[in-house]
């Protein structure tokens, strides 16, 4: 409600999910309370065209996957809170330290879009980041070296010195991120991590629900892998994420398989996880076999692309190496060609969907004149869409939102 007070009333609101509907109801109620009649309502021209409210449980898949963007991996390994993270100070070589830094000491790094370099690399697949940083470093070295020879004119030198602080900042930025990227790369080389990603991809790309050879092979490989993870006492979050992913993507697990997992978890990690397991079942992340909806959702929304090559393209599939986050796909379909075309699939997803319009005076509406011949500006204003995830969002999804090609009809 306060947002609407600042940016103006949003004319079109779409939503999917129980909580989304509730949020909308609270929103309109609050609006009615603060300005019971239209005379005193906000007089600000609306700057947002559409608002999309999405329940987290509409897309439970994406948070269960390991994020593969630079920022996403940092979050997986170290945890990013309030746009900053803490890293061991020892990875940053600095001339005055020379190895005297305490290995336990952590340094706080702020990650924001204001830093040009970071905003360039944050959403890319982390394997692309290394070479990119090397290129940038080379470029900076070039600029430095250009002015080392004595033939530079005074004018050129002047330009150079005026640009110097920028250049130094860039160099700092590059060396800082090189250190961080090296750390991320090391952790990615860990064989356990590699196997985890392979298994995740196996679950995502198998033709679930259709009992053909590939899906039963996948299950044959995944179950022993998970059991071994348990036996080796890998982190329980990792194990729980994997079995939930398996359950969601396969429309539920067979009774025997499920009971086996549960028993193994309690035997290995302890009885205290009993309530956790019951809760997971209650909220639908871990279930017995139920309606086979996943294959048609996957197909209609084109969630996976087995031929995706991260070196070639940067688009909606980049964040998870071949998987397009369901939530982002819904947003994409909303704008082009509209949710009516995927009505069937929307019915398969949990929670009601709704579409509302909030009335605002025509004078306050955002100008999106395309055909207006009297318009002074040749281009149309880009549409502004506010997407609100109720229940949290992953960095991978944010990255996918940035890298998706938004086509407007």
């Amino acid at each position, binding site marked *: 409600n306060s947002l609407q007070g600042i940016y103006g009333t949003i004319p079109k609101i779409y939503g999917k999910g129980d909580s989304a509907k*509730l949020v909308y109801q609270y929103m309109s*109620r609050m609006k009615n309370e603060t300005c019971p009649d239209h005379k005193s309502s906000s007089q600000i021209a609306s700057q947002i065209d559409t608002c999309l409210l999405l329940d987290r449980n509409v897309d439970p898949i994406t948070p269960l996957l390991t994020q593969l963007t630079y920022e996403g991996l940092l979050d997986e390994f170290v945890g990013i809170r309030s746009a900053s993270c803490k890293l061991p100070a020892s990875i940053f070589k600095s001339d005055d330290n020379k190895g005297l830094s305490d290995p336990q000491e952590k340094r706080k790094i702020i990650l924001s879009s204001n830093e040009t370099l970071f905003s360039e690399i944050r959403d890319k697949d982390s394997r692309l980041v290394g070479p990119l940083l090397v290129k940038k470093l080379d470029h900076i070295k070039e600029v430095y070296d250009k002015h080392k020879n004595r033939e530079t004119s005074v004018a050129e030198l002047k330009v150079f010195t005026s640009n110097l602080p920028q250049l130094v900042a860039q160099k700092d930025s590059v060396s800082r991120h090189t250190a961080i990227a090296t750390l991320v790369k090391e952790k990615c080389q860990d*064989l356990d991590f590699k196997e985890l990603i392979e298994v995740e991809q196996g679950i995502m790309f198998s033709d679930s629900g259709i009992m053909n050879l590939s899906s039963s092979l996948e299950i044959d490989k995944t179950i022993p892998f998970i059991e071994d993870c348990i036996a080796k006492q890998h982190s329980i979050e990792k194990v729980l994420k994997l079995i939930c992913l398996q359950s969601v993507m396969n429309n539920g697990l067979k009774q025997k398989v499920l009971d086996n997992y549960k028993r193994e978890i309690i035997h290995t990690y*302890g*009885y205290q996880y009993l*309530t956790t397991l*019951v809760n997971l079942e209650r909220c639908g992340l871990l279930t017995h076999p139920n309606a086979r909806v996943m294959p048609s959702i996957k197909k209609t929304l084109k969630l996976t692309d087995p031929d995706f090559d991260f070196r070639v393209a940067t688009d909606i599939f980049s964040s998870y190496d071949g998987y397009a986050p369901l939530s982002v796909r819904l947003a994409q379909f909303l704008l082009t060609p509209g949710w009516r075309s995927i009505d069937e699939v929307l019915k398969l997803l949990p929670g009601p969907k709704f579409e509302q319009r909030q009335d605002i005076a025509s004078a306050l509406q955002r100008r999106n004149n395309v055909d207006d011949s009297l318009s002074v500006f040749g281009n149309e204003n880009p549409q502004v869409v506010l997407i609100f995830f109720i229940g949290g969002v992953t960095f991978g999804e944010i990255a996918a939102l940035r890298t998706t090609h938004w086509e407007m009809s």
Partner: protein
Amino acid sequence: GVPLTHHQMQSLTIKVVIDRLIQRNLWPIAARMCDHLCIPEEEGASRVKKHWACWKVAQQDSIHISDEMLAAKIKQKLQDTPGISYADIARKAIECKRPELAYQLLNYETRASQQIRLLIQLQRYNAALEKAVANGDSYTLYDVIADLRDYMPALNFQSLITSNKKALKYYLKYLKYWNRDMLFQMHGQNDDFISQGLCRVEDSFFDITVENKITSLKDAKMDFMRGKGQGEFLQSVTEEQIKLYRCQQSLEDELRSPKSFVGLSIHQTIVKLVCDGQDKKADNVRKEFKVPERKYWFMMTAGLSSKRDWDGLEKFSRSKKSPIGYVPFVEACLKYDQKHEAEKYIHKVPPEERVKPYLMAGDLEKACEQAYVNKNVRELIRVLERCGTANRNVSERIHGYITNLQ
């Protein structure tokens, strides 16, 4: 009309004049004055109309009109004026002992907090709860629930809260932290035996002695038996846990190390026993809980390696053909930086699977050679990924191998 000089008006101030007009029930004149003087509606017309409404409410002779119609009439007159607080008018109605009228008026009030407070005062508990739930503000809802619990007789409160699903959820959550006994009862009322059982399970973790824990769990088992769905699984798992507690208690007594085993999982218990050198006891536990061989071998490697018992580990690895292969042995050794030991086990790994352990040990040369011998391009690429600038010769070699194989 009442003549008024400019001077008088200035000394009285406009507000006072209007007030006096209102006091004399001369609302039309007051309203016109406000209009004429262009006083903002909140200060002017609203006050006038509100006063009129309050007066109307207090009128004894309007009793013959039904309360509903009276409220509607008031609403009609006041419709276009912003800033009207129906709650205040309703308050006046309560004062005049006309609760039904107040209730009708409250329906028009837009501010939920005001509405709810007065509804409770009117003892319209059902309506108050529903409005609180619809409002969506959890703090208000908790306050309302607390108030209702204080004002309503217990049984009525119980039935009210169970009938409203959303409010029930909030209430249960509240009880979880503040009144677990009540929580237990509520679950019982809803025939939710599984939740009851889980309550007892959670309580058992707060019990200090093992005997008390077992008692709680036995009760939990009874609850699970009555529950549907997952009840059976929960029952058998709880049974195992009781057995485990007993087993751990006797271990603690025999080994004279109090508080060291109770609370661990089966897996952790066995690993600890091995680590403490109690192999025979570990084996007993394995038999009692029918631990599958594969898992047992993992536990043994974990226990022996954390004890740094490399000879013991080797002896164990020779005891029979390993059901888990020898890669876990390699992993265990490398975890404690025993590269020399790890190499012994790499030789036991069949050649097709040797690349991974070589990589784990950081032996890139051997890994690349092995991958070439295996004629496996994928594995070669894996080794290549691990080569940094320090291993240029290895990466060159790998490129050569890859071209050879393709």
